[in-house]
């Protein structure tokens, strides 16, 4: 177990280092010179050169990278070119918003997905099964941004039951916040629910056909208990799918935040791209990548703990 932990953590660290280099070079490859942007309107070449020197932009790239990493490790990710605020401050304001949105979406996805999956597997071949399957296929095919727009048309424009935008913080006004998060979380969560439903259905069906369930039935165990046993064993594959879906959830959050004007991480990145706010893009993408790698690491470690076979299978598979 310890060897597995070390090996898996090692590859995660290598991935993060390589990804940070990729982000660093990527931001340097963006069109436009940040020094010219910082120097304001009609800059003199001397002013640009001075700013370039001040921010170390005249040093060789490897040195710039090491400077950046050194600063980043001390909690300094640079300053926004828009309002000169520290990037770390901006990130710490935006991150909780996206975390709340994704958490609520996971809640929707897991609850709806597992319930629908169990219902369709237990009532296989009935109308319930067809309805759940239809839901699964549509959930996979309907893009987030369209579902969001349709939701706004129905619930905000026609029925006036839910606001379409105007974010308030969870701490400032918990009820107002939840009211505004319901639609985004549903929109983001339904795609996940579809994936979870399909996985729950297929793995529960294969477990229900297994010998131990037949034994349980022969012993006279009631149907709900049989399903309970089978469900427990199918949940491992369902957990895998949930873990794999996290990346899609982050991608979805980028879009959903844009539609519902939620000041989260995704909106920060997209707005940063359109306003050429490079320090912000760099910091936000870096934090997103590190967070994602760490989550994957935790998921793998959790599997290895639950299922010892995973430890020797080689993390790369």
């Amino acid at each position, binding site marked *: 177990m310890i060897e597995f932990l070390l090996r898996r953590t090692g590859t995660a660290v290598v991935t993060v280092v390589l990804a940070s280099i990729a982000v660093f070079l990527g931001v340097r490859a963006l069109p436009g010179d940040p020094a010219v942007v910082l120097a304001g309107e009609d800059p003199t070449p001397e002013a640009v050169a001075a700013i370039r020197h001040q921010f170390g932009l005249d040093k060789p790239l490897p040195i710039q990278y090491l400077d950046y990493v050194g600063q980043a490790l001390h909690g300094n990710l640079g300053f926004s070119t828009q309002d000169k605020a520290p990037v770390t401050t901006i990130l710490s304001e935006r991150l909780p918003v996206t975390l709340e949105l994704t958490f609520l979406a996971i809640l929707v996805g897991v609850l709806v997905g597992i319930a629908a999956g169990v219902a369709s597997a237990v009532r296989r071949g009935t109308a319930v099964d067809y309805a759940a399957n239809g839901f699964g*296929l549509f959930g996979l095919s309907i893009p987030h941004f369209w579902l969001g727009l349709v939701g706004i048309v129905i619930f905000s424009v026609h029925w006036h039951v839910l606001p379409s935008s105007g974010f308030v913080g969870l701490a400032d006004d918990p009820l107002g916040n939840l009211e505004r998060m319901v639609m985004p979380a549903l929109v983001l969560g339904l795609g996940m629910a579809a994936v979870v439903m399909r996985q729950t259905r297929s793995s529960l069906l294969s477990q229900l056909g297994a010998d131990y369930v037949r034994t349980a039935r022969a012993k006279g165990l009631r149907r709900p208990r049989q399903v309970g046993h089978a469900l427990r064993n199918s949940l491992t594959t369902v957990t895998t799918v949930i873990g794999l879906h996290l990346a899609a959830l982050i991608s979805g959050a980028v*879009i959903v935040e844009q539609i519902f004007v939620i000041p989260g991480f995704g909106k920060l990145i997209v707005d940063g791209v359109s306003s050429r706010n490079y320090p912000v893009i760099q910091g936000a993408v870096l934090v997103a990548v590190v967070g994602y790698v760490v989550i994957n690491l935790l998921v793998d470690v959790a599997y290895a703990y639950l299922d010892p076979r995973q430890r020797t299978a080689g993390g790369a598979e």
Partner: protein
Amino acid sequence: MTDTIIAVEAPAPAPVTSWRRAGRRFARHRMAVIGAVMVGVFLVVALFGPYVVGSPSRLGLTDILAPPSGAHWLGTDDLGRDVFARLCNGARVSLLAGVVSTALAMLIGVPLGLAAGYWSGWTDSVLMRVNDVVLSFPYLVFAVGMAAILGPSLRNVIIALAVAEIPSVVRIVRGETLALRRQDFVRAAIADGARDLAVMGRSILPNMTNTLIVKATVAIPAGILGEAALSFLGLGVQPPQASWGVMLTSAQQFLAQDPLLAIFPGVAIALTTLGFNLLGDGLRDVLDPREAR
């Protein structure tokens, strides 16, 4: 695997009969046929639609946000342009984005996956590390970044989506190669003195066609959705060119006056992806009996 001798003598299963059998199984698979028909309709509209319908960018300033009528089947948008004509032209953009990005990803990903799986060792280690790095970016964050670096245009969206798709192709091909490399007919070819490239091209690659076909039916709709998402965010196809994502962006401002404007492009995206998903599910059942329920 039970009959080794036959496996050695017949490296590839006789293609004609197995394809014919797969075709028959496909025809019996109701959902797959429905999916194929939906994809077919999409292809016809994307290929021929733009020649049949009127211009997608002719302005009709007297006829703004008009409801569906005989002259404009699906009504007009905020600049009086015909929504149906724009949908048909958007279909072509979607088709290009989905098919070309998938083809590019396969063209680059398949050789890399073959190399990683066949020459294990440091080739594999290096390729898989690079793969992990690209996979450590959430798909859309990566595509947004790529599109930002390259600048907004259909060509750049296709490049961004292709690069974002490569790692998953590499991963699948590598896995298949690892499994096939242990098979007797491949070992026989190697023992027979066949060169590495010949083994990969003649013995390994033909045996993963099914996997690649199924992968394509997943990657194409992902590309279609990706293009729509990037264009929706303003990082893809630029107005006035018509794309389903661009149409949704402009519809967003008129949700209260004309919700239909947001409905049609969304239905088009959903039906196209649904068609590919049904087709893909069906093909997986038909081409890969091990996976069948």
